[in-house]
């Protein structure tokens, strides 16, 4: 296979004395949806934060498109084409929905393209269109999640990092969001998805990594894992 879009080699991350990640190796190829599943506190979010440089990796390398990003400041990682829809959504609650989206396109300078892309996001998420001039802090949880994803997409990333997009949302909204995620892949965006809802993640992803207490314990094609008795017991209930 050709050079992977993202390659993580021997990554370890410490929070003080606590080892959050130990010697992680992970690969994402262009056009894939790869999911990272595991229990709470297994290090899923930390992996994404290490990629977007919100946490410092103690050891190891992160290569994006063959280029080392391990020591870059976070804003440069975005400029290279990695967008991160973070844990807890983190919408800018005191700015409007529209301003949040415009800031999502902060790294771009093509005014017309940005405008068109924002309108496209409003078609994708009609609820956001209705609330475009509302402060983001007044949105419901589901709407904030939609905003977080739309905002990340507006930087036109090649690689999109999604942290728990289903967390705390009604099943109908989760369906809506995951259908958008599949559409994004069809339009050429590569996705690394962190999920607690393993069932949903496995039905969406091509490949899967399982994290347990900071270590990768299993990697496989998503379809095979759906059939695996052991995994079904441990993660799918």
């Amino acid at each position: 296979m050709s050079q992977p879009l993202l390659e993580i080699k021997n990554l370890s991350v410490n929070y003080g004395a606590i080892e959050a990640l130990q010697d992680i190796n992970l690969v994402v190829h262009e056009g894939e949806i790869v999911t990272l599943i595991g229990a709470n506190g297994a290090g899923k979010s930390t992996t994404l934060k290490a990629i977007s440089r919100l946490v410092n990796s103690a050891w190891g390398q992160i290569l994006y498109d063959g280029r080392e990003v391990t020591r870059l400041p976070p804003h440069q990682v975005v400029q290279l084409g990695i967008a991160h829809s973070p844990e807890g959504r983190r919408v800018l609650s005191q700015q409007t929905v529209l301003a949040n989206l415009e800031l999502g396109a902060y790294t771009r300078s093509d005014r017309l393209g940005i405008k068109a892309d924002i309108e496209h996001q409003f078609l994708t998420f009609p609820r956001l269109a209705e609330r475009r001039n509302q402060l983001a802090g007044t949105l419901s949880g589901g709407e904030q999640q939609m905003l977080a994803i739309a905002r990340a997409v507006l930087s036109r990333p090649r690689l999109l990092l999604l942290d728990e997009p289903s967390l705390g949302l009604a099943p109908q909204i989760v369906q809506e969001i995951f259908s958008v995620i599949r559409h994004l892949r069809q339009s050429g965006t590569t996705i690394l998805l962190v999920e607690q809802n393993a069932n949903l993640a496995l039905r969406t992803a091509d490949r899967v990594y399982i994290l347990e207490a900071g270590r990768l314990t299993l990697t496989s094609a998503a379809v095979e894992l759906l059939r695996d008795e052991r995994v079904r017991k441990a993660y799918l209930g």
Partner: protein
Amino acid sequence: MQASFLFNHGHHSIFTAILNGLSIGSVYAIFALGYTLVFSILGIINFAHGAIFTLGAYFSYTLTGGAFGFNGLLANASLPIHLPFLFALVLGSILAGIASVIVERLAFRPLRKRGADPLLTLVSSLGAAVVIVNVIQYLVGSEIYTFPSDIYGRLPASINFGTVERPIAIRTVQIVIFSVSALIVSILTYFINFTRFGKALQAVSEDAITASLLGINTEKFITFTFFLSGFLAGLAGTLVGSSVSIAGPYFGIAFGLKGLGVIVLGGLGNIPGAVLGGLVIGLAEAFVPADYSGYKEAIAFALLFMMLLVRPQGLLGRSVIQKV
């Protein structure tokens, strides 16, 4: 009681008091904006702000060609240039902005990189203030410096807004102060609310981590904020210095305390609040009768104290810190 107090002043002196109040209040406003910008970005009160105010006044004084007194390392020295006041004002304020960026690099950034408690940064900014004040004293002594009386060229020293029989004279310097401050507040308001740069600044102020995930270089914005804050302090220092005099290296300390009062009154981290707070305190002071002018500050702070009993979050503040 309030009404009889006003009537005793007579109509024209009410008018004068309002204009004077707006003038000094607008300087409080731009000074307090500098505090509030840094606070809204870092959540820290920059105690060096008053010292930068002083520094800006000295810079501008020097640029107008003003000579130093008999004390200090630079005794009797002066620059060979005599810039017109408005140029000196702008250039002196830019230099104050640069000084503020240096303070950020030395007193704020190293602690921020280590994730230090904001309280420590507060102390290190206080340390920076002491250093600046002492350096000024070492260089130029602690004399009072007065800007030349002809800083506005051919403009008269005061303008009569009343009639010949009932004059309402307002000093030209007050009008200049008010105009410059109003201009700055308008530009800043536009800039923060309606430009891409301003929106990014608001994003950094609300949540720096999220801002960096959107591709915003947060460190660059912090540097810029300190520059802007120092520029505003320099403007305020020069304007006050030109209106009264530069009362020595400690000139900015009392002013700095009042600036704190202004931002607390307006609501911490709130930009319209800083402007409103400045005008309220300026007006309150202007209505203190001349006989009691020594108690002006006490009266302003008493007002602040009473207001905070009613609205602890400040005039325009919300119960949580609100941005812009």
